[in-house]
């Protein structure tokens, strides 16, 4: 039952929830809680915090890390590249199915695109013959933010996690992201890496627990 002195009891609920009350006080509060559903509900809400609080690190309460200012431009560039790609994909699809409207759209895009994108030499990377009918190839497109990577994977189980890395000539390896291979899905993953294509020496694709390597700009490949 809610009483006039509920407020006083309530102000002890925080200490109770965090296990900071002495035995005497806790017993008295228990007696009050017995008859006061409001205070019990309040205690439940506060007690729920003790587990999350135990995970937190008080050293992190003051400073909050902030993203570097350049990240906004990187994200904008990646999304811009993705938008252009979607448009190309849509127009490619339209042509394949012969729609007149799509053909018109394609002409328009062909007129607009060359000025919008800085064309550079693309690299086609074929991982060659791999064990177990696995086939991997990729198209690498130079871009202002780094390299855009179109992945083609076949012959692995649906749902397999694939991870892609680019290695620079100086030996630095940068992740280009991850995707899951799905059967029967006509789409292909488009990833991006901050490494410039001109500085890229090799590409690594990890399919499940297998790692495959291919030289970028050469036919060599191997497996570990």
């Amino acid at each position, binding site marked *: 039952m809610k009483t006039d002195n509920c407020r006083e009891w*309530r102000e002890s609920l925080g200490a109770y929830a965090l296990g900071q009350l002495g035995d005497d006080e806790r017993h008295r509060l228990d007696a009050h809680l017995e008859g006061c559903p409001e205070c019990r509900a309040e205690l439940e809400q506060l007690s729920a915090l003790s587990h999350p609080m135990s995970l*937190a690190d008080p050293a992190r309460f003051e400073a909050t890390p902030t993203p570097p200012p350049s990240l906004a431009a990187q994200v904008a560039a990646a999304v811009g590249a*993705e938008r252009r790609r979607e448009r190309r994909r849509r127009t490619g699809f339209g042509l394949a199915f012969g729609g007149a409207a799509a053909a018109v759209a394609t002409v328009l895009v062909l007129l607009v695109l060359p000025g919008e994108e800085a064309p550079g030499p693309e690299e086609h990377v074929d991982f060659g013959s791999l064990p177990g009918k696995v086939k991997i190839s990729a198209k690498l497109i130079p871009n202002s933010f780094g390299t855009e990577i179109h992945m083609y994977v076949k012959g692995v189980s649906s749902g397999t996690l694939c991870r892609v890395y680019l290695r620079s000539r100086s030996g630095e390896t940068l992740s280009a*992201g991850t995707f899951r291979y799905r059967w029967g899905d006509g789409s292909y993953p488009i990833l991006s890496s901050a490494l410039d294509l001109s500085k890229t020496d090799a590409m690594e694709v990890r399919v499940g627990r297998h790692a495959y390597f291919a030289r970028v700009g050469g036919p060599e490949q191997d497996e570990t």
Partner: protein
Amino acid sequence: MPAGALNRERDVREAYSAHAGELYGFAMRSLGDAGLAEEAVQETFLRAWRAGKRFDPEIGSLRTWLFAIIRNVVIDLGRARAARPGVAKEGIEASVEPIEESLLAWQVEEAMRRIGDQHRRILVETYYRGRPYAEVAADLGIPVGTVKSRVYYALRALRIALEEIGYED
């Protein structure tokens, strides 16, 4: 097309200004590496853009949606890192940091930054440093009873701040 969906690059820029800081903070907390955290934020906005039409503000906030995406991105990046040469082991799944716990920890830390200094301080002294109420009371020049009531109001404030950033029991 639902209002508020991420259909234009401008929508992404606005979403970035509003939420990138928090997303980055969470990614840093979970991955412990600035480069990976940047990658996580970029991948989150790319995935959000690709799925932009599926975002429905009727169902939940943009913030909640972005956090659902980055949660998966962080899991993927954590696994990728666990599988890098040198640290690769059998049972990759088991070595992944428990994402729910790092999300909860980050939420509490973020909520602590949002509540008042007085509230934060009383919780740090009594809970995190485990100091007796009498000692804290003497330090702050307040009665012991006030320490107790401050703990209560600080927890209430923490709970509200947590709910604001998407915490659910």
